[in-house]
């Protein structure tokens, strides 16, 4: 199952990179979102996908899935969400101010 997940993550990374390299600001943001999905899944995968009970002690199982990566991913999800929200608003303001979302046209002046 790990191999399958890693391949999936690879596809997510490829598409994310492709999106980040584009000119449109919105596409870059979408790329970043996909990239964070890829990173979260990679994290989970590499900590081992062994079967076990959810990390809830009430289950009284013999084995639990690893709780630490889950905690870390939870933190990452929230931070990623914050960053995405901020970028989205930033893109909105940039578009309002400059009437373009083409990154090539947002290059700044010549003497900079």
């Amino acid at each position, binding site marked *: 199952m790990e191999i399958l997940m890693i391949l999936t993550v690879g596809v997510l990374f490829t598409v994310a990179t492709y999106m980040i390299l584009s*000119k449109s600001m919105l596409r870059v943001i979408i790329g970043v979102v*996909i990239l964070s999905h890829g990173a979260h899944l990679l994290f989970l995968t590499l900590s081992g996908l062994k079967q076990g009970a959810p990390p809830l002690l009430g289950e009284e199982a013999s084995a639990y899935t690893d709780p630490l990566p889950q905690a870390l991913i939870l933190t990452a999800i929230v931070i990623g969400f914050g960053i995405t929200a901020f970028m989205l*608003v930033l893109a909105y303001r940039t578009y309002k101010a400059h009437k373009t979302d083409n990154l090539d046209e947002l290059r700044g002046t010549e003497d900079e």
Partner: protein
Amino acid sequence: MSTLHLVALAPFIMAIFIPFFYFKFRHIHTGWFILPLPLILFIYLIQYLPLGGGPMETVERSVPWVPSLDIHFTVFLDGLSLLFALLITGIGTLVVLYSIYYIANKKEEPLNNFYVYLMMFMGAMLGVVLSDNLIVIYVFWELTSLASSLLIAYWFHKEKSRYGAQKSMLITVTGGFAMLAGFSLLYMMTGTFSIREIITYGDAIVTSPLFLPAMILILLGAFTKSAQFPFHIWLPDAMEAPTPVSAYLHSATMVKAGIYLVARFTPVFGGAPEWFWIITGFGLFTLLWGSVSAVRQKDLKGILAFSTVSQLGLIMSLLGLGSAAVHFDVVDGQSLYTVAVLAAVLHLINHATFKGSLFMVVGIIDHETGTRDIRKLGGLMTIMPVTFTISLIGIASMAGLPPFNGFLSKEMFFTGTLNSTTLDIFNVQTLGVIFPAVAWIASIFTFVYCMIMLFKTFTGKHHPERLEKEAHEAPAGMLISPVILASLVIIFGFFPNLLAYTIIDPAMQSILPGLLEPGEQFYVNIYHWHGLNTELFMTMGVVFFGSMIFLNLRKWQETTFYLKERDPLNWFYDSGLVGLIKGSTVVNDVQMTGRLRDYFTYMFTFLVLGMGYMLWNTGALAVDMANTADISIYMYIITLSLVLATVVIPFVSSRISAIVLMGVIGFLVALLFVVFRAPDLALTQLLVETVMVVLFLLVFYHLPELKKETFKPAFRLTNLVISIGVGLVVTLTALSAHALSYENPISPISDYFVENAYALAGGNNIVNVILVDFRGLDTLLEVLVLGIVGLAVVVLIKFKAKKGEDV
């Protein structure tokens, strides 16, 4: 802290008080307050001279500075240091006196600046010659470069002054850095920064592979400072400085710092053929080049600048020849080569005296006539008789005519070069013939520019209409310093043995230690009449051919060689500097495009190449199929949907579909979290994804339409290649990491959390216990992140920049 430390530091302390003198006593020339200091230092230093005969006692005092790095401010006074310190303070006194009359006490002259820089320079120079620690020497060395540049650009409103200051700074500081590197190599070889201790390591240094690099780097420092070919080009441009500065820095002291360094390191490196050849070779070539270039100059200070270059080359070559005496093969004929060192020390003193006086004389001429151009000057002999007399003495000495001191050192120079042809080490017999020949030709040119200087300025017809001022004799105060120096030229000329055992012998003992038994002294006897020997005939030849060339000056005056003034090597410096600026602009423009995509391209490319190389090179590439969990059939469906939704995204060209697809991806990820038994994650992911989609939809109306990307095919292909590369590298790394984690299993710390979640924290949800109890700090800061984002969003939306305000 001893009195000797104070000698080096006193000028710096003085510099602090100069602005006070300047602003408090406006009507008194600030120089008067400075004058006593170098004089006192000079008198203080004289007491160390072995006036009563016998060898000089060396003095050493140490003050720790950075003891842990073996850096001590150690002052060490031996013959060589004393010679230089006396030159610095003695000529310093005369220069300060001269400058009081030269730079008028007018409101617009920032005298405080001038004297602060001058004192800074004097202190730095004393520090260089008195220090024993290499790092301390380097510190003072760079201070002299700094002070010199400040003094050259004293009239900083002139463009030429700034150009000259920048040039001297760039060249001497480059050399200084090289020297520092050389010092570091010496430290690596010996483990000490103290020169005297380094000298005792003789053999260890000579056999070390670092010997040659260290030597060349240190020589780079010495050659740039002492204006040796091809680094001499800064010196003529430094003539934009006020004349007292040129007299002091660019003839008598700073340019001799390199000479000092070479003399100081002769016991360390001397005896090696490389040292002999490099110093002698460059010295002689500089001598020739400088004397030939001086002939072309039309500006009196230009002539003197190239003359200084040439004479420094002479001293340098003598030190090179003299270093042969250190060679272990030379035992019997040592005195043949020590003569060269003797000549070097003697000429060092002579040059300081006559060149100092000549610069001052040129300053007087400039001051009283308004020009230094030899094409405008002429017939000043009867108008300025005192100036003329001083010039005559100085120029005759420079040309090497009896009975002045220049004659003595020139004769000895010829002796030194002639001796070198008999040298049976370093294969000199074959090439050695060149030495006296070059020396002789250079002397002829020296004679020629001396004649030009003298006759073009003082004889011929006087043209008052060409001058900016009415020419008249200088005030007495201005003449004191050059008169003193000119008297020294005569005194040393007639009674050279005044110097012999007081200063020359101690200096020679410092340059060539170990050649003498303790208590012995070098046989120093300088006299005018050697009998009818080769040297005398060479001097006669110089006078004869020099006069012939000068008398036929008219014939070759029109040649392009004579008409051009600037050194051809300046072309390399100027175009090098321009090329450097242009080159860096080109490089900058190529990589700093300002396009986000280009920067991402660099980063991703580096990531792919770097990680790919590491994977390949360390052989970490591995795939482990054995230790994987089983795949249920529904897993294929979920991952396939995820992959499909993702792959379609780049092809979508409408906003709403892109947002919906992102939602699909997010929910599929949440589903995966469910599958992998992470209920909290699934919950959060669902919520976050929902909010995100809502957010996207909120700004939906305001967002721009997703235009079809109009990339060129090549562009699109690069993107594709890079992204596939990134995906591949990430996949391979993840596969290898997965495989390796089973090769070297480490038990996860999660067991601890599982065991203690309830016992220690009283919670059953382990993930939540980790979040708020075991690793609560993460959560706290994550909350902070969300808070900051919230504030930032509010500011971004609410804040409207006023018109004209920079956002």
